[in-house]
């Protein structure tokens, strides 16, 4: 059973082809990187896989289940969750409340349950697990803070915490270290590795920061103009002429190699 498989996925917006027959396969337990110059289609790819967009054609299979065109909440229920490139948080709620809200799928609250309070045990369990996740990601000091008071670095970790709260098997991180300084980046990289190593969650990562990608990912898929350009380990990709050409002039690539 292929853990996660994308076959000939194409996405067209009117006349623009954002994704052109992309195929790839991710094994369980991998940390896979998806990179490419700006406009290569990385975020579109995430949006199509996570259900925000419907693919124009192609197949997306997760744990042998066809998920192309499914709505995001259903895909999340199957164990495939993504974080957003932008800071996506529920304002006016605290960090702990945000993570607790993300326990939605596990808590399975019903109308009668809410009115009569019959699901008290499941709620306690949800809160408990939320606290565990917060501890795991070292957000405990800010657990009671409102999200608007958080530093940028903490906000991005919270994004990841919320995704983890859904108990995913495959976690898609969209530029998790964007806008972070080098210390924050190292912390996040560590956490990502921990998530895979200790909790066995497969990671699919879109990133611009080459150093992070090269250091973290075992396999890297390169996109350009909506097509798959290359795929392989960090050394292969670093020395791949097509990839170098695609990034020609881009500082980010020079800096990392």
């Amino acid at each position, binding site marked *: 059973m292929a853990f996660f498989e994308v076959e000939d996925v194409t996405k067209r917006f009117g006349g623009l082809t954002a994704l052109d027959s992309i195929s790839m396969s991710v094994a369980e337990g991998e940390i896979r990187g998806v990179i490419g110059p700006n406009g290569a289609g990385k975020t579109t790819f995430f949006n199509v896989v996570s259900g925000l967009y419907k693919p124009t054609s192609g197949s997306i299979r997760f744990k042998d289940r066809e998920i192309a065109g499914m709505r995001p*909440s259903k895909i999340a229920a199957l164990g495939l969750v993504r974080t957003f490139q932008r800071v996506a948080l529920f304002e006016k709620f605290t960090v702990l409340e945000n993570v607790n809200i993300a326990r939605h799928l596990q808590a399975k609250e019903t109308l009668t349950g809410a009115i009569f309070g019959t699901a008290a045990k499941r709620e306690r369990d949800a809160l408990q697990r939320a606290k565990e996740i917060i501890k795991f990601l070292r957000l405990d000091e800010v657990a009671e803070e409102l999200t608007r008071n958080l530093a940028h670095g903490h906000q991005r970790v919270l994004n990841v915490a919320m995704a983890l709260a859904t108990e995913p098997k495959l976690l898609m991180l969209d530029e998790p270290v964007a806008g972070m300084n080098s210390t924050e980046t190292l912390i996040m990289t560590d956490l990502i590795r921990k998530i895979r190593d200790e909790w066995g969650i497969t990671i699919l990562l879109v990133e611009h920061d080459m150093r992070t990608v090269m250091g973290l990912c075992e396999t890297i898929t390169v996109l350009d103009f909506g097509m798959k350009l290359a795929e392989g380990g960090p050394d292969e990709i670093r020395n791949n002429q097509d990839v170098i050409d695609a990034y020609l002039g881009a500082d980010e690539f020079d800096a990392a190699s």
Partner: protein
Amino acid sequence: MPVPRVNPEIASALALLAVLCIAPFIVSEYRVGVLIIFFINVILVSSYRVVTTTGDWTLSHVIFLGVGAYATAIMAKNFGWPFWLTLPISGVATAAVAMMVAFPLLRTKGFGFFIGSFAIGEFIRHVWIKFHDPFGGPRGMISIPTVEIGEIDFYDSINFYFLTMIIMVVALGVIYRLDKSRIGNAWKTIYLDEDLAESIGIHVFHYRATAFAVAAFFAGIAGAMFAHLNGAIDPHNFEVDTMVYLVIWIVVGGNATFWGPIAGVSVMSFIFELSRPLAEWRPLLFGVILIIFLTVLPGGLEMIYEKVRSRFFGSRAGAG
């Protein structure tokens, strides 16, 4: 051993309730009638808040008041069913109508949803106008029987007052519990960041529909009481003008917390009574109030209260 803390909001509400229990014995019969209408409006505006929590402002809510009213009128008058049966069925019937309407309507959002809900509401209202059987056409329905429970005579204002008050308290209790629950939070997240909510497993369409149906259920309950109170209903009771008043209550009060709309309807009901001498100028006053609150005081009384409170007592963290 820690001393159990009573939620201050609930404590104040209970105090108010105690006052309301004494009120009918010390005020005039006219005022008792005014308070009964007020209770019905409180149920109506609190139910409206439920649907606005997800960000789905509708212009059809007063039509659901009507659906509940017509349902009760038909069941009580034409079938002779007792109150304990017609009340919940009115609520369920209204929720059912809402669900039928929700499936097409929830494909829209924002302004399109607002106007679409209005269009569907007007369609329903014209159904009442068009069909004499069973809705009584433009004249509506009259001679709706009074409530009968055991030996108690509910034609008596004070008895009906307490009946309405009890129903209001139960309705508010349910709405409050839902608001504070995971479901209530899910509704709020849909308003705050719909894509994020969907991505963490909250089925947005389902929750919007649930909010819509729950809101309609309680509007139907309010409608049932309305039908019994007036003894007669007609399509004019449920026109867009009434809907605008509903919007005024929630705008003035604010809809960030459960208590906002209740504060709004309380203040506006008070102003409504006080401004009786203004006669035909009254709608102008209400129009100006609506304009002022929307342009200058968008958070409503709630926000004013919060600003005053945080200036003097310091703000508190956590969601409303």
